């Protein structure tokens, strides 16, 4: 998600724990602001605005603020081992599964798979083509295409492994993903409101467009609970297709790009590679939905409700930790080093993603009742 992977070299455990402490402290401030500001400002000129600010806004802004302060103090890189956006968001999403009835996942699965397949194919193809026209390196094209069409940094990491990209290319792609995701968190909910999109359509649009899973959750939470659920189902579906794309890239680079240089072809079976790259948290998300649905059926809705509500509070806590980490991880330096062409490719691909995603979401999710 942020610029994580590559900048983080092995940090001593003490520093990593320090990083986690920073994340938890900022999350506590987020929770306090979220619960205090609306009441404290009620009846004032700022009151309506404050009441509309959701927790992702506080969390990301505090994360960015912490990023600036820690960078100035020279501590950010050392503490970055504790900024575990991927872990926090995936744990939050597994918990989110408990609040979604299994019937909703099943009824949305067909549309979600269709949208994901079409969107990934169109956006990946366009980004690959445009990157080629602008003369980008094949490996960077693969990273950018995967990141913008599938699921941001997770996809970039998988693609980097598949095509043997350099760490600088991964750091660059990761920074660009966050650079585009941060404004999207706020812009897409506003646009969805301006366009009068129903919650399921807005959720599908957000899930299909914003690259990082954490940012999808943030934007979905701003729109509303149903939008968050559909956005998560759509994004989880895209995540699940990551393995297919990674295996295809591995094969393509082995057979077409590197064979010319006398390289060997990969020896592992497709099945083994698919399983290795399959995002396992998607299984946890579905398992949580199965467990909660069965539990509710067994004990009754009235008894299950307060317990599911506690699970939802836990989910919110993990999402806050993830959003704080996004802000803390963001780096500008790799973007400066790479020049304008990859940024141009990414921007154009994002525009195509927005347009095609809006069409698909409207077509597939209008009138979705769950």
């Amino acid at each position, binding site marked *: 998600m942020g610029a*994580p*992977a*590559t900048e*983080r*070299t092995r940090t001593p455990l003490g520093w990593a724990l320090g990083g986690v402490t920073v994340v938890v402290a900022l999350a*506590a401030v987020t*929770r306090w602001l979220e619960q205090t500001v609306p009441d404290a400002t009620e009846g004032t000129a700022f009151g309506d605005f404050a009441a509309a600010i959701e927790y992702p806004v506080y969390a990301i802004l505090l994360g960015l603020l912490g990023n600036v302060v820690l960078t100035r103090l020279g501590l950010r890189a050392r503490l970055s081992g504790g900024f*575990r956006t*991927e*872990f*926090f*968001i*995936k*744990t*939050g*999403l*597994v*918990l989110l*599964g*408990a609040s979604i009835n299994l019937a909703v996942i099943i009824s949305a699965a067909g549309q979600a798979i269709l949208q994901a397949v079409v969107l990934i194919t169109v956006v990946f193809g366009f980004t690959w083509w445009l990157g080629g026209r602008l003369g980008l390196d094949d490996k960077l094209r693969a990273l950018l295409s995967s990141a913008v069409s599938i699921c941001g940094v*997770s996809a970039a*990491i*998988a693609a*980097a*492994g598949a095509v*043997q*990209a*350099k*760490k600088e290319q*991964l750091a660059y792609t990761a920074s660009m993903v966050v650079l585009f995701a941060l404004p999207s968190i706020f812009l897409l909910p506003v646009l969805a409101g301006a366009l009068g999109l129903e919650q399921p359509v807005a959720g599908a649009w957000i899930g299909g467009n914003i690259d990082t899973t954490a940012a999808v959750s943030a934007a979905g939470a701003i729109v509303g609970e149903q939008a968050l659920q559909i956005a998560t189902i759509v994004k989880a579906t895209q995540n699940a297709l990551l393995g297919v794309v990674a295996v295809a890239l591995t094969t393509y*680079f*082995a057979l077409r790009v*590197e064979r010319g240089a006398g*390289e*060997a072809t*990969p020896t592992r079976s497709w099945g083994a590679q698919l399983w*290795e790259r399959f*995002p*396992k*948290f998607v*299984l*946890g998300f579905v*398992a*949580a939905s199965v*467990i*909660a649905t069965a*539990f509710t059926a067994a004990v009754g809705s009235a008894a299950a409700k*307060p*317990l599911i*509500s*506690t*699970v939802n*509070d*836990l989910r919110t*806590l993990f999402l806050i930790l993830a959003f704080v980490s996004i802000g803390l991880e963001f780096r500008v330096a790799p973007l400066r080093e790479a020049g304008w062409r990859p940024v141009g490719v990414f921007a154009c691909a994002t525009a195509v993603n927005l347009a095609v995603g809006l069409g698909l979401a409207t077509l597939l999710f209008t009138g979705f009742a769950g």
Partner: protein
Amino acid sequence: MTTPDPDVRRARRTSLNEDWAATIVGLVLLTLVLTGLLPGWLVP
């Protein structure tokens, strides 16, 4: 294939480990709440 960049390899391994860790932690927390071992008042 060319030798993988060690940083990229490490990032990939970390990502896979975090996938499993998140799945396990999420399901354990869910189980604790549903069985009443983690009461609501403990969650801020």
